[in-house]
């Protein structure tokens, strides 16, 4: 620029140039949001069917989940607390239900799940370790359960056509996605409603919002899981594999987590039904999930050395109710109940799910009268 023009400009015109630059750089990322979002005339029922049939739709992309479920459950339950309480960044490559890879991105590392048929590899960069396990009958929730398609299919599992209606479209990861609202019939679930936005061509859920109260709740949804980038195409085989570097220590483990271990070795056999909810887990197991759709829970017997620290942490939760036989806390859609008291030598039942505390107390009472069964 010639100096003459610099002198010729008044300070006011120079500062308006600066203001223009600021406006431009702020507006550029916001501009796409102003474009109108196209809609389709697909009905809610058709969309619901499409979602249910999307398990083997190949896709890859980048997902962010945000949870507002704050329960102090520590490390004993794996990553569950972290996954539900904060922001999680995931990369996913999904060929079908049997072949996928989900990378959970950490600031300075990664925790990856690579699923191949009956086997899952859990890799942790900072431990430089990969653990291979057979998929168990029951396990705790993990990162892959929060992917919009997986979460969307789970919550819409038993939705009736009459309980869903269309929502306006929304642009998710650059896709104009028609929306769907499922309002479960008033009952024992803590979930008020679930909003799902769907990739119109494949039925793949792109964004899922789980609300524990009406849509006008200022706190917003309890759990949001959304694609920020998505490509609906079957990813290449080498993307869903785990070609471990020689620097990675690979080991095989018999049990995946505390729920898997309890399910196999604890001295109980869970009944087919508990408090009116059907058992989902097959076989003679001591730990299992019950219910369906947005009304489901998990029942796991814990030894006192696992139960006692958990109970101490739970007592710190806001709104916790403690008593002789149980400690129960609720945050948003999730209720967690733990039976027994400290230094109780026997097993304590952990019951957690999207049900009201009262319902879980019914469940707990039924569990506490289960007889010991020697499985060995």
């Amino acid at each position, binding site marked *: 620029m010639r*100096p003459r023009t610099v*002198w010729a400009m008044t300070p006011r015109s120079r500062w308006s140039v600066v203001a223009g630059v600021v406006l431009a750089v702020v507006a550029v990322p916001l501009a796409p949001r102003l474009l109108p979002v196209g809609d389709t005339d697909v009905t809610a029922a058709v969309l619901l069917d499409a979602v249910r049939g999307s398990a083997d739709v190949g896709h890859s992309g980048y997902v962010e989940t945000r949870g507002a479920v704050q329960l102090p459950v520590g490390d004993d339950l794996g990553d569950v607390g972290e996954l539900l309480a904060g922001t999680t960044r995931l990369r996913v490559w999904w060929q079908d239900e049997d072949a996928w890879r989900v990378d959970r991105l950490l600031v300075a590392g990664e925790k990856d799940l690579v699923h191949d048929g009956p086997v899952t590899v859990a890799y942790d960069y900072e431990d430089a370790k990969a653990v291979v396990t057979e998929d168990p009958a029951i396990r705790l929730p993990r990162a892959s359960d929060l992917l919009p398609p997986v979460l969307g299919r789970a919550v819409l599992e038993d939705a009736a056509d009459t309980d869903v209606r269309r929502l306006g479209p929304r642009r998710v990861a650059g896709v104009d996605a028609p929306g769907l609202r499922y309002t479960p019939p008033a009952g024992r679930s803590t979930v008020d409603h679930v909003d799902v936005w769907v990739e119109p061509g494949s039925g793949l859920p792109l964004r899922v919002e789980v609300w524990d109260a009406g849509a006008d709740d200022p706190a917003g949804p309890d759990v949001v899981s959304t694609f920020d980038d998505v490509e609906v195409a079957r990813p290449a085989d080498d993307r869903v594999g785990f070609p471990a570097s020689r620097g990675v220590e690979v080991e095989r483990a018999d049990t995946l987590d505390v729920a898997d271990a309890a399910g196999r070795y604890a001295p109980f056999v869970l009944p087919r039904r508990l408090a009116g909810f059907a058992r989902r887990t097959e076989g003679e197991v001591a730990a299992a999930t019950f219910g369906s759709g947005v009304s489901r829970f998990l029942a796991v017997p814990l030894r006192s050395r696992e139960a006692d620290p958990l109970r101490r942490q739970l007592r710190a939760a806001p709104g916790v109710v403690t008593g002789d036989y149980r400690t129960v806390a609720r945050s948003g859609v999730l209720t967690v109940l733990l039976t027994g008291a400290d230094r109780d030598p026997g097993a304590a039942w952990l019951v957690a799910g999207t049900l009201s505390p009262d319902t879980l107390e019914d469940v707990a009472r039924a569990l506490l009268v289960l007889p010991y069964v020697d499985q060995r």
Partner: protein
Amino acid sequence: MTTAIRTRGLTKYYGGFLAVDGLDLEVHEGDVYGFLGANGSGKTTTVRMLLGLVLATSGTAEVLGRAMPGAAHDVLPEVGAMIEAPAAYPHLSGRANLALFDAMGRGSRRRGRAGRVDDALDRVGLGGVDGRPVRAYSLGMRQRLGLANALIRQPRLLVLDEPTNGLDPQGIRDIRALLLELNAAGTTVFVSSHLLLEIEQMCTRVGVLDRGRLVLQQHLDDLRSPTGRVVLRTRDVADARRLLDHRIDEAVGERIVVRDGDAAALAAELVAAGVRVDELVAERRSLEEIVLAATGAGSDTFARTSPVDAGGAPTGPTGVPA
């Protein structure tokens, strides 16, 4: 004769404070122009406006016939300047500093740089300086270096603010000789100073600034033409008073001031009357007297009541004319 510097109504407010007030400067090419004023009278602000460092609130300034600051890039290469104190990068030697400044800006050429630097250093008497960093220079050496920096491009116009600050008497004489030599070779020199003696010994024209206003701008020779009085020093005071009686303006001790334009005739008259003349000289006003008559109290005095001065506006405690 072209003008080297011409300002019309040059005015600068710093916030509400009026630093320079409607200045009409006129410096001719070839002048050694003395710009006088007490500390804080607006000299430095004026110099900075001429050089485009400070922007005038109103009014215009022309330097070497071109408008400033608009034509700064054509004008300033022909101007050498020293503004207030000299400044240099303290961790470098004087030579490195000059080379660095020479490399800046438009029209800088690598060719002949070492020669230019040496010439400039020679001119100010630093030709033999070693490689010590400027940090270790004395005040006088820094002053000389600043001057060398102003000279390195062989400017048509030199603008110098207090150029002899910090120099010893010998140094002052050197600098004065250098400036006069440059002037003789065609360089216009604009010197601002609060030292009257310095200006008096060097300048052909003076401008006097008082609280932002130009109160005087004239040829020094005109200012200092004989006043029409003669100063007589004699040991025969009584005789002299008797003889000159009604022509005496003042008499203190052996010094008698006589109203008479012709010193030679007076001398003859005194000698004829037998009055012994120790000293007889036509009176000329000193620059100091001229300046004091033209200005009020120094602008760094802030008297509570308005100072008794020659027509100066009463000043409030903040120095802002009421």
